[in-house]
């Protein structure tokens, strides 16, 4: 009797699970009904991507795009293993990663972001000026006091204390770290040799904090601290940040305009894998980067592919207007035009 009731219970439980499962299953094939497209990757563009998917679904109610913000590394891995239809990354895939994938993968820049230095020095309220080599010196642990001549020279008239500099960096793997190190490696051969460029690096100095909120929290608490956070995060939380010297020698305040200017100052290669840190142009902010969506060039699933191409066309044109409101710098027009052309390659 007991066994019978257990069996009945199990059958009922299984039956109860069934509709849910079949729902997600039937959503998969393109049976003319609704279409679910799954993607995964970078956390940085997550707010704008979810806004885009939302807005796009309003006009295309039969297409549903899911995005898991698990990190660029995870996005690349899942795309390579084909567990998701598209990936997203804050850094372009390396040649080795591209070779490891099941077929050719194309990069599509979607929006732009910047990274800014934040600091907490008692009695200093005016924005400080940093050069690339100075930031490299600080993060290599060579410049250790706020009244170091290298800082004083760039900031005449600012009364700098003799405090120790407390260096704060990201502890979690992050595109923000990638962009920051990419810039420092371009301007300092010493940094390139000792640290290099990656989402996680071996820092010679300082403490690690988790996330933008961890870094800015620690900087705010610690007298004499310096850190780096995403421009969006600094803008949204009204944190003051320093100006950085660009390749033209000008000190530029990071803003959506100066980040977009950085993207306009580079010659765009055909595969869109380009670093725009330390870009040319008098108004270009030097610590900036694209963030990319990653798609297979010859996907087997044509219905999803067509939907995704259509979505990207919309996101790159009409969708760009949502970017500034969320703190992202929109793409320059020539880049968009080139990308729309490149989308035709997907078949």
């Amino acid at each position, binding site marked *: 009797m007991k066994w019978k009731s257990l069996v009945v219970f199990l059958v009922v439980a299984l039956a109860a699970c069934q509709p849910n499962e079949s729902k997600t299953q039937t959503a998969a094939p393109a049976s003319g009904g609704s279409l679910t497209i799954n993607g995964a990757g970078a956390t940085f563009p997550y707010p704008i991507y979810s806004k885009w998917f939302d807005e796009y679904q309003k006009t295309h109610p039969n297409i549903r795009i899911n995005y898991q913000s*698990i*990190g*660029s*590394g*995870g996005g*690349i*891995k899942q795309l390579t293993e084909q567990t998701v239809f598209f990936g997203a990354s804050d850094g372009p895939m390396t040649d080795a*990663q591209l070779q490891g994938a099941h077929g050719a993968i194309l990069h599509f820049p979607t929006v732009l972001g910047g990274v800014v230095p934040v600091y907490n020095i008692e009695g200093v309220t005016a924005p400080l000026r940093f050069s690339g080599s100075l930031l490299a010196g600080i993060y290599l642990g060579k410049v250790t006091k706020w009244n170091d001549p290298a800082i004083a020279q760039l900031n005449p008239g600012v009364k700098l204390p003799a405090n*120790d500099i*407390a260096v704060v960096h990201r*502890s*979690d*793997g*992050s*595109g923000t770290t990638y962009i920051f190190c990419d810039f420092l490696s371009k301007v300092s051969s010493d940094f390139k040799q000792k*640290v*290099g*460029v*990656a*989402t*996680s*690096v*071996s*820092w010679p100095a*300082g*403490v*690690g*904090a*988790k996330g933008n909120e*961890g870094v800015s*929290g*620690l900087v705010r*608490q*610690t007298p004499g601290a310096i850190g780096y956070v995403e421009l969006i995060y600094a803008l949204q939380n009204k944190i003051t940040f320093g100006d950085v010297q660009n390749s033209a020698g000008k000190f530029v305040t990071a803003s959506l305009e100066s980040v977009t200017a950085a993207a306009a100052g580079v010659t765009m290669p055909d595969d869109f894998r380009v670093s725009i840190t330390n870009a040319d142009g008098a108004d270009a902010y030097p610590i900036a980067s694209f963030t990319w969506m990653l798609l297979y060039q010859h996907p087997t699933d044509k219905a999803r592919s067509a939907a995704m191409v259509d979505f990207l066309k919309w996101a790159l044109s009409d969708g760009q207007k949502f970017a500034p409101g969320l703190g992202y710098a929109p793409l320059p027009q020539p880049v968009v035009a080139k990308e729309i052309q490149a989308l035709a390659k997907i078949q």
Partner: protein
Amino acid sequence: MRRSSDDRKFRLGTGVFAALVLLIVIGIAVELTRQSTLSIAKFGLKFWTTSTWNPVSGDFGALPFIWGTLYSSILALVIATPIALGIAIFISELSPGKLRQPLAYLTDLLAAIPSIVYGLWGVFVLVPYVRKLEVGTPDWLRKIPLFNGPPLGVGMLSAALILAVMVIPFTSSVAREILKNVPSAQREAAYALGATRWEAIKVAIGFGKSGIIGAVMLGFGRALGETIAVTMVIGNSPQVSASLFKPQYTMAAVIANEFTEAADELYLHALIEIGLLLFIITVGVNMISRLLIWSMKRRVVVPITAPIVPAEEALA
């Protein structure tokens, strides 16, 4: 007849569940090893003893993480154990009857707080106090290796303190239950011999010694594996240092921090090998505590329990 077949079914069913535990443990070990073959092949035993951790050049050694994990957990244990036992003894032996339940309930509640909440509390409340303490430390004291390093607030001391707070409810709950289960005949016998209250409690503690060691080791296991709260306050800087003020790193923290962005195969394998080491260390710690309990049972508990336990059984 029917009864015995029910018995067999019951035994089979529970046996399957017990075997499941074993299977899961073996499965974890196998899978961790399988997924870290690249790093095991490349670094071998050197992985345990080298200190470089450089994802850019692909050079990995786990020593700073092993050190940070053990050091922070042991420090936490040193801080937490006396407090936890004090709580347990007060609740089970000394507290007025009305207070007993609420106090027990409150300590158990501490164990239910999510670790991210402890972490946030650590960052916003504990760390500033630790920084004040570090800034106020006189220079001559800072020359001692135990106290040198920059006064950042985040570092080994903050990590140990937060771990201690998190471990206390675990240790004290188990220790309390153990003291509660000490037969009252033990205490009565002690009183009959003219013992003071303190001496009677000592007898009760002696009786439950092996269980109390178990409670402490449970806390240790909890401290070894704690991830998010520690990573928020330890400073995440891989270095082997005895200093309480310096930022360091733990095994669980580095996995949590770097796993999502590790796209390179060797890097991923190195991170999973850290997981394997943590697994090995946890198993090792548990085995040592078992041995400790076992040797203690043989030495102490048997002669005391022998005359007391049969009291009820004799009636049955």
